[in-house]
């Protein structure tokens, strides 16, 4: 059993009285790939929003690496080591793949350091290495807008990787991807887990089965079931939630 990297403790948030998350406590280990599944409105994306600081919880805490990060500003949470990928590909379309990755290179990230930034051999090497990992080694000079949908998703993952996060939050990374691209993404995420924890929100059960070490099922903002894919799939409550309506 390895050490936990992320813990949520009794995490709740409500929007106008609607409880999007209700007392959720989960623990993610440092080298684990965790999938979060559940029907629409279960609170999956909300959970990622709370962890990454996009939304402040009504109550409860988020602990990362033994530090309480609840309520920190987004950029501080990123600097603490949590990378967040959005549902729709979010890359800088007018910049090249190289520049996209360079933008995320963890320089001190102030306006001054950005002004003084120079492309050193280290930077170039790091960017080339990451580009290879996300299958974009031969597209470095191309503008991001010329990439296919799947490639944009990979580029965004690459932009997170270059920040050397301890935890990656991926929101539906394979949505809209072709079968071939899905296979490659599975491989990519499997390799990722050797260095960092990954939390994936995904609808595609085949994909989840291939990548997840453990699965957390949410339903109406609460924890419904947790465990390996086989255990979860056999759980009558889960079947009820997925087939019941």
């Amino acid at each position, binding site marked *: 059993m390895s050490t936990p990297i992320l813990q949520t403790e009794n995490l709740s948030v409500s929007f106008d009285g609607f409880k999007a998350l209700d007392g959720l406590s989960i623990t993610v280990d440092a080298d684990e790939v965790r999938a979060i599944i559940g029907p629409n409105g279960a609170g999956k994306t909300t959970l990622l929003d709370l962890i*990454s600081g996009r939304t402040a919880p009504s109550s409860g805490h988020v602990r990362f690496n033994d530090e309480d990060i609840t309520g920190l*500003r*987004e*950029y501080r949470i*990123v*600097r603490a080591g949590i*990378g*967040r990928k*959005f549902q729709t590909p*979010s*890359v*800088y*379309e*007018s*910049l*090249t793949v*190289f*520049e996209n990755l*360079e*933008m*995320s290179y*963890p*320089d001190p*990230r*102030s*306006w001054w350091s*950005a*002004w*003084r*930034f120079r*492309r050193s051999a280290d930077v*170039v090497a790091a960017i080339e290495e990451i580009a290879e990992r996300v299958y974009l080694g031969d597209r*470095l*000079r*191309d*503008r991001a807008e*010329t990439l296919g949908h799947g490639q944009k998703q990979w580029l965004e993952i690459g*932009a997170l990787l270059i*920040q050397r996060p301890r935890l990656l939050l991926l929101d539906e990374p394979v949505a809209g991807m072709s079968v071939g691209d899905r296979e490659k993404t599975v491989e990519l995420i499997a390799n990722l887990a050797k260095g960092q924890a990954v939390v994936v929100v995904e609808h595609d059960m085949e994909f989840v089965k291939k990548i997840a070490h453990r699965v957390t099922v949410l339903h109406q903002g609460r924890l419904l079931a947790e465990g390996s894919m086989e255990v979860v799939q056999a759980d009558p409550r889960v079947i009820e939630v997925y087939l019941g309506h």
Partner: protein
Amino acid sequence: MINSLPPLSRGSAVRRWTTQVLVDLRRRQNVYFVLLAILLLAVFPLCFDIFRLNLFGKYLTYAFVSLGLVLCWGNGGILSLGQGVFFGLGGYCMAMFLKLEASDPVTTAIQSTPGIPDFMDWNQITALPAFWVPFRSFGLTLCAIVLVPGMLALFIGTAMFRRRVGGVYFAIITQAIASILSILIIGRQGYTGGVNGITDLKTLHGWDIRTDSARLILYYLNAVMLLGAIALGFSIMRSKLGRLLVAVRDREERVLFTGYDVASIKTFVFVLAAIYSAVGGAMFTLQVGFMSPSFVGIVPSIEMVISAAVGGRGSLLGAVYGTLLVNFGKTYFSDAFPELWLFVIGALFIGVVMLFPDGLAGIDLRKFIYRLLLRFRGRGAAARAKATHLPPGGDAPLATKNAPTDGAGLL
């Protein structure tokens, strides 16, 4: 994406030459920068008499504001409708120093309180207000020109951007600030000179700024500083910071989740734009010889935005030309048809936004010449070329694919 257009035809070497030259020109804005320098430093002084040169010098002080807007609005996506505030503060700081020098006890001996500016005396003020005292020193005045607007912008920026106030709300707030400051200046006549502003400025350390030679020197000082401001702007736009600003404009959330403190980056560029404006304001006061609230309020602030938009809000050089054009137009029109000017500038703004969203700088010179050449080549060839080479709405997709981005190459 100039380098993505396919060659004109297999024919004329002259045509290919023209194309190539224009490609290279566009690629290296440095060449355009040198052309602007020649225009400002040689062509204008040689072509215009001192009166007109002084007038162009005045236009060029507005160009500082436009440069600031290009960085802040065109690149950073922060529309400020209150740049007149900073222009005015810079200008007033300079005017206060000059006014104190012009109000020595000997010259103002007939006043009931000699040694204070005349408008204070008219308003029954008997001692120099404390906030005027630092402006006896030229060194402190120079500091104030940068620091007063800079600190105000820092305050506004920090207060707004930390709370995620952006877009149209930010624009409205800056406009309100412009309105407040001009009302304040007009209302506190005894301290500020009121609606007339601060006038009758004469000398700077004993050097008469109203003479022809002084005007020529000030014009050159202004032009050199403007070129310096452009160079500084280029250094930002070509750096990672420049790309970061565009990224903040286009995908603010992504930048935030890349670990950048977006609020501090926005504040930085807003402060920089404020300082640019303030320097322009100070140079305005020196060259025109007065400062008044008519350069502070909403209308001048919006005119400055229009100037930047006409020139091209993404282009530093374009903004300079846009400012010259709009202000030259303003001088001409407000002489010939004073009541029409506001309609003209309104129409200009709408026209530019609808037809040339990237302003003058966005007009593709090569495509323009290309079309011109096509016209000379006879109808059939033209139609054919148009069909194959100029798809509507911009660049040929095939060629775009492997084209390097503008500005910096890969390494």
